[in-house]
């Protein structure tokens, strides 16, 4: 109820005015949205690529954080970043239970991820990526990340 009310309000707003590099792909319902983001500056790791984000909203959004992951398809790879696993799961305190705040919204999450990519200089996956991707069956919201890197 609360979630659909707020999402219904922000949907037309989003279509009108989104920051550069962020586009709304699909928002048919109040459960799952797809967004595309691009890195706008000259960072060679991400230049010319577009990445697809999937938002899954729970009933209690925005009190509870949405589940945000990168998804892969033919045109959209998973960005290489020391905090993004190759199955698309993002390790970012903003998306975790503790780091989330109800004042965030789809747009602000996209902007945060954009800046997280822009400021990155390491062309690498997180340590232990392969093992994590192979063994992980949990949903992102149930994983307990340890946030240790304050540089991004």
């Amino acid at each position, binding site marked *: 109820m*609360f979630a659909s*009310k707020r999402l219904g309000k922000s949907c037309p707003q989003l279509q009108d005015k989104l920051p550069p590099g962020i586009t709304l792909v699909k928002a048919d319902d109040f459960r799952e949205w797809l967004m595309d983001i691009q890195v706008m500056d000259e960072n060679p790791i991400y230049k010319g690529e577009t990445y697809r984000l999937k938002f899954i909203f729970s009933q209690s959004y*925005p009190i509870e954080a949405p589940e945000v992951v990168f998804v*892969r398809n033919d045109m959209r790879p998973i960005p290489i970043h020391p905090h993004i696993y190759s199955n698309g799961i993002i390790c970012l305190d903003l998306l975790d239970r503790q780091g989330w705040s*109800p004042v965030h919204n789809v747009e602000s999450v996209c902007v945060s991820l954009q800046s997280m990519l822009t400021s990155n200089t390491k062309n690498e996956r997180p340590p232990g990526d392969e093992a994590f991707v192979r063994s992980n069956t949990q949903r992102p919201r149930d994983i307990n990340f340890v946030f240790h890197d304050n540089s991004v």
Partner: protein
Amino acid sequence: MSSPADVDTVGGPPNSPSPLQIRASNSLNSKSHRAPLTKQPADLHLLEYVHEPDSNLVCLICHAPFDRPVQLFCAHFFCKDCLEHAWRAQHDGRKTCPTCRSSVDPDKDLRPVPKIVETMLDELLVKCPNAQAGCAWVEQRVNVHDHVMLYCEATLVECAQHDCRLHISQKDFHKGCLHYTVSCEDCHTSMMKKDLEDHQRTACANRSTNCPHCDTTLLRLHLDAHIKEACANVTIPCQGSIVGCTFTAERTQTNLHEKSCPMATMAPHFRDQQARIERNEARLEPLTRKVGILEDGLSSITNMLYPANDSSTTFPVTNPLDPNISYSFPPTNLIPTPDFRLPPASFPPVPHNESHPSQPPFDSQVHHLLTLHESLRDEVNRIANALTELDGRTNMMVINESQRTKDEMLHTNAAINGMRMQLHWLMSATLQQRNSARTSAANGSAGGSNARSTAQGAGAGAGASVARPGPIGDFPNGPLRRLSDSTRQDTKL
């Protein structure tokens, strides 16, 4: 409201309220103690605002203009309810400002907002929450509560009938219970009495209505078709718009235009082509699926033929038409990147390379499998021929051999028969002698020794030794039988 004669009454009101009851329910007293109980006050979060509200008056949590706002000491504003919602979800029990995360003591740090903010909020223009039900009221937000609770005729209240649990809008309250089923006289749809009037005014297909464009009066049933095909005043695009004509005007104008528009004349052909393309695409779909299934089957056959063989060197089968494969293969095998597009050259396909399961070089595999199949068939044929030949030869040999044996057996049989004949002859001769001897013995014992010597001579003549040539003179019958017995045995051996 149509007169009662107009409607087919299926079930009458269970118990029409008496005039007294109606008056009682309309009187202010009764309403104040009965109706307001069931009215829902308007939820300010759900209100529709006439103008887009100033973004400074919007709560960041619910994205609606503040409802009973509070101010935190860090000068951030929220609705009271929203803030409580957010704090209830914080797991560690710590209460922080959702915007700046500074911790908050709800007893000390919640302050009322400045009066001017409240006034601005109160003056926002809103629509009545019952706008869907037909209330056109638009006023300042501060009045919405009073309007909904006291004045709005579309607010739902509980039905006047005591045992009826349904709701009815306030303006129909005095009409008594309208929750019984009637059927529309024009289109025979069943509905509740309270909905009948609305139905006849706006929805019933068999009532006449006016075309909104050309003022023709016609049945509502035909309105859509009329607007789509006949109405002269409807604005429609030129038929050639699918080819790129941008002309758009009222139907009469457009018809004139289409006579001269080359694109409009071409449009039907294009439409036909389009339809054909779509048909073909639809037909292509199952074919593609079929091919996929066949390819899967083929690859599983391949895997069966060469189980767990992922060294590419044992099967250097590549498409001879594509020399790139052999060049590109070694590096791609070492680093299997996800967007690897070139087909894997290994045969059978390496099972762990699953980034593009649908793109292995089926051409070369098919080719290879077919040739393999052909050569296998040749081999089988050859073996079958050799088998037949061998079979014939064995048969001949067996026949020859058995023929020889048969001949030999015939010979033996013949020999045995000859011997038997001889024996018979000898035996009858001996019997004769013996008979004659016995008769002579009966005549005189002098001939006894003579007969014995004759019997001994007969035994030697048959080629066998007489086993026990007992005293013949004492038992004349026994020794005779034994003699013949032993002779026959000897012949057999």
